[in-house]
């Protein structure tokens, strides 16, 4: 077999293309704009949670004479009726909110994955027992329980709250995961893994779990949002310790000091906005994860902006026709520098063939049979006029 040494075709195109592709792929989830915005927002709040207390210009508890000051150079977000700096309270309070949200989210997700996937995978009596457990926890009302526990444990801080939220919030996710695992368990690739002799833990963690990523991620995000809102709510109604700062505590003091009546908008608006911003960032990340972990969605999602620009509507069942092509097509622009149609003999084939509009078929001389007719007409010459 004679393999032609080819200086143009393989060697030139391949490396350029491959690196381009890898470069893009390594960005992974960051290619998705929604996820990117969400991650930046979340990272901002996480950094604040870490270094907020040191950034705070004032002691959040320090009572001063400047009561109810609107935002100024000294107090960026104004002061409370006792002259406390609201900006400092916000910065110090970020840690509590993020800690509870992430801790509760992680704990609840872990419990739901362990219980849900195991139940779905085991089946039989194990499934029955674990499902029963999930059902029991499903009907425990979270908020009243937290109020009772917080009232019983006087020192109930962020971690206690997070534990309670995790303990009451995992059951829903576990039911969803169990259902999905049940349908995955019987798939051929799991059977194949079993036939391979893979141990059960490997099948669960390396064969089944990757298929559940989207559900696990959305479960985590949902629980984290729920946990943050619960904690803020508890602080707002004054159930938890009011001396421990979080955004809910700010709202509690604002409400009890009648900030709304006094027109002190700077007291409650920033905290409310922060809660909304964290919720938004988590939701955006959730969208991004959805599109990213599903390899089928990934391509379409990643090129969504490109599709909009070209005006292509990618739908199942109605393949889009994009005729922006011609010279605009990327394939052809890349090859445009090569002489093609005018010379007749093509120095490099791919080019001529790829942009080939029907028109330049006639420019190839020398094919006796092809003389000027579209190539397929040979078989249909006799009826060409009928259909035209």
């Amino acid at each position: 077999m004679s393999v032609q040494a080819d200086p143009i075709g393989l060697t030139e195109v391949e490396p350029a293309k491959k690196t381009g592709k890898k470069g893009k792929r390594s960005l992974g989830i960051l290619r998705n704009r929604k996820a990117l915005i969400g991650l930046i927002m979340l990272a901002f709040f996480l950094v604040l949670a870490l270094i907020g207390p040191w950034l705070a210009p004032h002691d959040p508890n320090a009572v001063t004479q400047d009561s109810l000051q609107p935002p100024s150079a000294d107090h960026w977000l104004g002061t409370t009726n006792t002259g406390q700096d609201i900006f400092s309270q916000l910065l110090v309070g970020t840690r509590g909110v993020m800690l509870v949200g992430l801790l509760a989210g992680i704990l609840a997700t872990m419990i739901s994955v362990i219980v849900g996937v195991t139940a779905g995978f085991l089946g039989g009596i194990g499934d029955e027992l674990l499902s029963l457990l999930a059902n029991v926890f499903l009907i425990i009302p979270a908020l009243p329980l937290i109020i009772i526990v917080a009232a019983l444990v006087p020192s109930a801080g962020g971690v206690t709250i997070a534990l309670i939220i995790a303990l009451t919030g995992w059951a829903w996710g576990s039911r969803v995961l169990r259902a999905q695992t049940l349908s995955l368990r019987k798939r051929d690739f799991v059977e194949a893994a079993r036939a391979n002799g893979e141990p059960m833990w490997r099948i669960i963690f390396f064969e089944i779990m990757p298929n559940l990523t989207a559900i696990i991620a959305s479960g985590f995000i949902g629980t984290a949002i729920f946990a943050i809102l619960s904690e803020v709510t508890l602080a707002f109604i004054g159930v938890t310790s009011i001396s421990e700062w979080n955004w809910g505590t700010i709202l509690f003091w604002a409400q009890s000091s009648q900030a709304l009546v006094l027109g002190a908008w700077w007291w409650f608006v920033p905290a409310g906005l922060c809660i909304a911003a964290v919720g938004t960032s988590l939701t955006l990340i959730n969208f991004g994860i959805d599109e990213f972990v599903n390899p089928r969605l990934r391509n379409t999602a990643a090129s969504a902006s490109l599709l909009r620009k070209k005006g292509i509507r990618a739908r199942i069942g109605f393949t889009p026709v994009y005729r922006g092509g011609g010279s605009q097509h990327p394939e052809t622009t890349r090859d445009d520098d090569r002489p093609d149609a005018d010379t007749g003999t093509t120095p490099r084939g791919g080019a001529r063939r790829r942009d080939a509009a029907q028109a330049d078929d006639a420019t190839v001389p020398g094919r006796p049979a092809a003389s000027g007719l579209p190539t397929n007409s040979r078989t249909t010459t006799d009826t060409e006029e009928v259909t035209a």
Partner: protein
Amino acid sequence: MTITTPQRTQAEPLLEIRNLSVDYGYDDDAVRALSNVNLTLHRGEILGLAGESGCGKSTLAYAATRLLPPPGVITGGEVLFTSSRSRESGDLLRMSDKQLRAQRWRDTAIVFQGSMNALNPVYKVGKQLIDGIAAHEKMSRSAMRERAAELLTMVGISADRLDSYPHQLSGGMRQRVMIAMALALEPELVIMDEPTTALDVVMQRQIVEQIIELKDKLGFSVIFITHDVSLLIELADRIAIMYAGEIVEDAGSREVYHEPRHPYTAGLLHSFPPLRGPKRELGGIPGSPPDLLSLPSGCRFRTRCPYAVDACAQLVPELGGTVFGDEEPHRSVACHLHDDAVDTPAVPAELAVRPEGRTLLGVDPR
């Protein structure tokens, strides 16, 4: 229900695919899965599409019916459907969703590869047959049920199977149900995407015979996609051989079998033993199909071609006449060996086999 038997005018085209190009992906990295494919299906003809996996057989069929899922996008060409019933005809690529939806199944039906996946497991087959009819025709429920029973009988399943669920039928029966479903509206074109691949040879034979019988009775045309060349040679009237998104040879099925003109066709034929005639050496084709993202220059097959010469790296072969020119007017091949304009050695004997009793100077090969 009356069954119309159209005249078998061989030369009348039903589906004309012209310069069809398809990309997978939307950006600069898009893979060009089909490059300017030209293909004509005549009325009453069984056209086989053959080639290795990934050469674009299914892509061609699904692009022509606009059923290609994302990220597939048609980047150019025409697909002309000429209906004899003078309903909506024209370029499928320019039809609105509504026209397309109306055209589907009524004019162009598809038999999918996996009957188990194409039939909904929670509905009885009768209901699924009726649903297909109800989407297009205004008929009474009982008339539709009658029609469904008729269809099942037509494909050799007793009518009382209407009340069976898909899992209660064997693989072969399910495939027959799929064929019955495809024929429900008496379409003019039936696309069969590897309909017998999952079946054993006995069942395969029965299904193929059934298809031919039904085709002769009802007069539809078939595009039959398979990688089983030996099956096609028996079944099809004409075979188009595809390679790396292009059609490399288009000829009658007997001609393809006895007188291949393209090295790739010859290679495919050497990949399975002949049932009759002298034994051939089982050579197969070395290597694997090229990566569509980094195609070799010139001829796409040249890296695997035993006859490749320098010119093959320079020029892209066009689908054109064979070296025998006007003696073989009904077949075309895309190979420089057959192109007088390109400086290549004489066509090797393997690719220049002539039918017995005919010489190079013979008059009409037909």
